[in-house]
């Protein structure tokens, strides 16, 4: 979190984390498309030729002033593919809240678990832990025929019982609910720590 007293700005960094192809960029693209252009900046995506995120996606949201204060949310995604481990670590620097985008498809369970462990490892290195850090889970791709049941997903991934959301990010279902939840969680968390 960065507070600029002179400008009364409060800046928060939110990172979308998850395995490759789980829909992290799709979340940001939907938010960017749907939000009033006055609230959002450009969406930057650093993609490979194959349309895969190579470093990160980034966009900033401003929702106007609240009691004279100006909250700004910086949204990032990480590249999901296993071999971009160091990019993921870099992007977590200074993070305030995390959205874990899980792929609901049955055969992606292992990828979800692996990435969640990778997240925990990276958080530990900067002194955080999933147990006490503000994060939410989004179960994406609920519309696919091979989607795992929510009960199983919850049992295998949501061991800290954080808020979770069902989503079909490509249609925008669950996207704003997830974003709202993480922003509220981060702000409450910051308040509790003061």
């Amino acid at each position: 979190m960065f507070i600029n007293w002179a400008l009364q700005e409060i800046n928060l960094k939110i990172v979308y984390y998850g395995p490759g192809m789980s829909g992290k960029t799709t979340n940001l693209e939907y938010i960017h498309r749907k939000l009033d252009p006055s609230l959002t900046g450009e969406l930057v995506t650093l993609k490979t030729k194959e349309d895969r995120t190579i470093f990160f996606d980034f966009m900033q949201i401003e929702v106007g002033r609240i009691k004279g204060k100006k909250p700004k949310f910086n949204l990032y995604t990480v590249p999901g593919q296993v071999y971009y481990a160091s990019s993921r670590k870099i992007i977590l620097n200074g993070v305030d809240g995390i959205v874990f985008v899980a792929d609901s498809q049955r055969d992606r369970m292992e990828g979800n678990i692996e990435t969640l462990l990778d997240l925990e490892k990276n958080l530990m290195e900067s002194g955080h832990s999933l147990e006490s850090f503000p994060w939410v889970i989004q179960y994406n791709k609920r519309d696919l025929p091979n989607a795992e049941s929510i009960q199983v997903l919850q049992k295998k991934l949501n061991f800290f019982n954080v808020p979770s959301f069902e989503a079909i990010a490509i249609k925008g279902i669950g996207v704003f609910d997830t974003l709202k939840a993480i922003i509220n969680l981060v702000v409450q968390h910051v308040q509790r720590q003061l």
Partner: protein
Amino acid sequence: MVQVKKMKDGSRQVILTAQQFDEITKVLSELAAKTKASTILLADMSGQLITQRGHTDDINTAILSALAASDFAATSEMAKLVGEDAKFKLLFHEGEKRNVYLSNVGDNFFLVVVFDVSVTLGLVRIYTKKAIQNLLKIFRESEKGEDASKIIDKDFTSMLGDILDESFK
């Protein structure tokens, strides 16, 4: 000093007071005047823009800061791979019309100087170095910091909830 608080859960909080902000802005303005830089940014290593000077209307400086922070982070990893103990202190990108010079300011911050190719790099280096010394001095100067609880109170939290509902319809 600039408050960089480590919170209980390990997260970091950076709070800049109004006075520090004014002083920092002054240093950057002087640097811009001396180097004729078109744009100067001060940001933190997480990619958060702190302040900017020069022509910033035609550049999205929030994005520039995010990219520059990653640039820094990526080259630090590169430094490790080639056996450097410390981070690379500066990065330089040479263009046809404009050059970009990045230099760290202590461990937590960095400067981005965008300047015309007609300006010599040496000049930019000298004045940037001086500016960094001044910035570090501002960061170190002891001063009672502001309390973040004054800015994020209960009202703020509930009003934010309402405004999000409104914006994310």
